[in-house]
């Protein structure tokens, strides 16, 4: 593994790899290396561990420019003294790096309020396959000059270039946070809870359903903001959903809930991500149940207002899991949704495409990849359709 200490060094390494016709893979914190397809083995690994400097942090503008290897946890430490934070609450903050989070298009439950990496990435420095260093976006929160390359690079899994430096929008950290929990809800109750919250004009920063057994869920709604508003919102949540328990009186309830959520997203040798319309949750539940039933320690989380979910567990039988994965994906795709494999043992990854059938716009995607990486040397084969 080569670990460049500067963007110029990255550029030199990339140019060298081009000359030597070497395949390059990028490694940040290594939290998402299971995501995507199995490509050919890279000749060179470029690690961003040493690229961890803060280039510019203007607390008064709530904008930070940092190198790609900075971890999410370190970013949080830097922002905290200014009563600020970064809205992307992705798992494993101690390890996850900003560059990696861009590559996977990361998000956490607070996407409900702040959006994910896609929404908060203002600018980007990309080291291209040929070593050229290209900047896009800007250091201000509003900018439409030129094409929005940060959006295209976000979630591109390192297939277009090395993310070397990022500019991020920060937010004021809330004064207070409270989680309310509805215990033992059905999938229909989860959908109703979303509706009820909207009707009541309540605006939780996170809304997550966690599977507690076949067809049963706990629903956690987190309210964040100024103390008075949060208290009132939590009280109203309990008013409109009388079965809810108010974690205000029992903070450990909320802590345990979010710990379980994090476990769902980080543990288990098989981890998948699903997307569907929020009101289709009943179908999602039905489609995932055979898979979850085939796993040991099955876990599932559903971001109820967004229509995004995660499932994970230990495999008991590859064959059963593969069959259940195919069925679930087919059902989700019929409803306009998707299923993406975030981690799985090699045998499963070899037998089951991480992203599924290439979409209608695949010809465009292939052409985009070809323009940025003509010899297909960057993170080869890992992205959609083997790009």
């Amino acid at each position, binding site marked *: 593994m080569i670990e460049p200490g500067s963007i110029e060094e990255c550029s030199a390494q990339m140019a060298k790899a081009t000359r030597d016709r070497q395949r390059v893979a990028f490694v940040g914190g290594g939290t998402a290396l299971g995501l995507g397809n199995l490509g050919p083995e890279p000749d060179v690994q470029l690690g961003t561990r040493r690229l961890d400097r803060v280039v510019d942090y203007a607390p008064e503008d709530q904008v930070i420019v940092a190198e790609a290897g900075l971890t999410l946890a370190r970013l949080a430490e830097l922002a905290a003294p200014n009563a600020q934070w970064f809205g992307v609450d992705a798992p494993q903050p101690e390890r996850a790096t900003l560059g990696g989070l861009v590559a996977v*298009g990361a998000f956490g439950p607070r996407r409900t309020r702040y959006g994910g990496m896609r929404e908060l990435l203002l600018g980007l420095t990309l080291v291209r396959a040929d070593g050229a260093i290209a900047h896009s976006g800007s250091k201000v929160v509003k900018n439409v000059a030129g094409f929005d390359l940060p959006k295209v690079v976000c979630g591109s899994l390192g297939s277009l270039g090395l993310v070397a430096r990022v500019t991020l929008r920060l937010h004021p950290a809330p004064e207070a946070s409270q989680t309310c929990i509805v215990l033992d809800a059905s999938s229909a109750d989860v959908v109703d809870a979303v509706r009820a919250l*909207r009707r009541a004009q309540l605006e939780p920063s996170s809304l997550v359903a966690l599977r507690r057994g076949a067809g049963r869920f706990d629903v956690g709604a987190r309210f964040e903001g100024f103390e008075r*508003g949060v208290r009132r919102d939590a009280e109203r949540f309990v008013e409109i959903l009388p079965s809810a328990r108010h974690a205000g009186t029992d903070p450990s309830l909320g802590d345990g809930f979010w710990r379980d959520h994090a476990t769902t997203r980080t543990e288990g040798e098989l981890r998948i991500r699903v997307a569907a319309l929020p009101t289709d949750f009943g179908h999602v539940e039905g489609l995932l149940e055979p898979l979850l039933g085939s796993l040991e320690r099955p876990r599932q989380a559903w971001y109820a207002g967004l229509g995004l979910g995660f499932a994970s567990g230990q495999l008991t039988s590859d064959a059963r899991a593969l069959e259940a994965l195919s069925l679930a994906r087919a059902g989700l795709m019929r409803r306009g949704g998707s299923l993406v494999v975030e981690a799985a043992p090699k045998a499963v990854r070899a037998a089951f495409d991480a992203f599924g059938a290439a979409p209608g716009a695949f010809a465009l995607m292939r052409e985009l990849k070809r323009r940025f990486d003509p010899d297909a040397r960057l993170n080869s084969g890992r992205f959609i359709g083997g790009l």
Partner: protein
Amino acid sequence: MTRKAGYVSLASMSHADASDTAAAPLSRHLVQRFASIVGEANCISDPAQLVTYECDALPHLRARPGIVVLPKDRDEVVQVVRLAYEAGLAVVPRGSGTGLSGGATPSAGCLLLGLSRMRRILEVDLDNAWMRVEPGVINLDITKRLAPHGYYYAPDPSSAQVCSIGGNVAENSGGAHCLKYGFTTHHVLGLELVLADGSVVELGGPVLDTPGYDLRGAVVGSEGTLGVVTMVTVRICRAPETTRTLLATFKSTADAGNAVSLIIAGGILPAAIEMMDQLAIDAVRSIMGVHLPEVTALLLMDVDGTLAEVEHTAAKASERCRAAGALEVRQPANAAERDAMWRGRKSAFTAMGRLCPNYIVQDGVIPRSQIARVLTEIARLSEHYAVRVANVFHAGDGNLHPLVLYNASIPDEARRAEACSGEIVRLCLSAGGSITGEHGVGKDKAAYMGEMFSETDLETMNLLRCAFDPERRFNPGKVFPTPRLCGDQPGHYKPHAAELDGRIGRG
């Protein structure tokens, strides 16, 4: 730069494309073929009628299109684009023509594709908070359709009553309330796009996170250079429980700028913070319908959310304004008064006519902590060039709209106005900002792209364009300072029969 009335500088012509020079009229046969797709009435080739389409809301940049075609649906767009491709015509898409950067300025002899007849609202899904519309649908009509159900569409450009959603997608339009809710790109979930060869692709959709590259994110803000958007899936928002409007007056723009910094630093995220200086206030005083004594600057703010949160944040914002030296912080007595305040703000550009016959609008962005300093610098530039500059802008996100006023009939004043305006853009760049926050680069600001981005940066952006439109058929001469090629052409190029016998040329 955006100039209101007839003034063309040599500077703005120097980056013109070769395609801007006079073009031969289209053959009658070709015109008939377009007419057979969209009907005679929707196919304009009469020179007198073409004049209407020579410019968008930036009237000093003009060119005569070869033909204007107004399709009624996606299938007609596909046929028109396919025929234009075959005939080697450049295609310039146009929505309502309200753009302020010349994004829909035709290239001479092009096919101008007007999408204003495509105004159907196709699908509304309140439970999942999305809606599907055709590109010609007017921005405000989306909210009007949703209002009875307590939902709305968040991006609110000042031209919301007339601008189209397709145009908003092209420009990644903003608006006053984007501070809290984000821009068009945060509210577009999916697009249907017609490519140069007439093929149709779906990008994104109502379900989040479609696997693959975020090409929808690439198209939003691409200023019509990648394809023609024929359908848009937008995210819609539940109306907040309550909105409180605050109007704070100050004795200087520096005080008002400091108030903005204090509010942001206080952890408050209002839905909107707009600033107006003395000249802007003078222009809209009668529209605002509120008594505004001799104040030099004002902030107009909306704070929204749940009731308890809003009570707290409104109080905190008022307190911060007073701490920055506000003369007065008032709340509108009723909805009518609130509407009048916002109407005043939103009609500020048009109201400038009361002060001066001509103006140039800039759209530069600066880090929001530097408003007070940059406004002082702008005042200095105004004095130096002896032209008046009015400021009315989105203070919360640092998006300035300095209006450089001039009278074109006074010798040399236009030149000084342009010089002053150019210096203001450079001032924004030197403060670490951007040349445009929401109006787009278009034709107007293309010359400044090279001051914000390096040649490598621009070349990299061009790679994206080449993936979509390798022959640069869509909206040539926009965004980039100099025409650039795409290198190799994918696939084997076969010249069309009309090309072989010399009737048409390429590009």
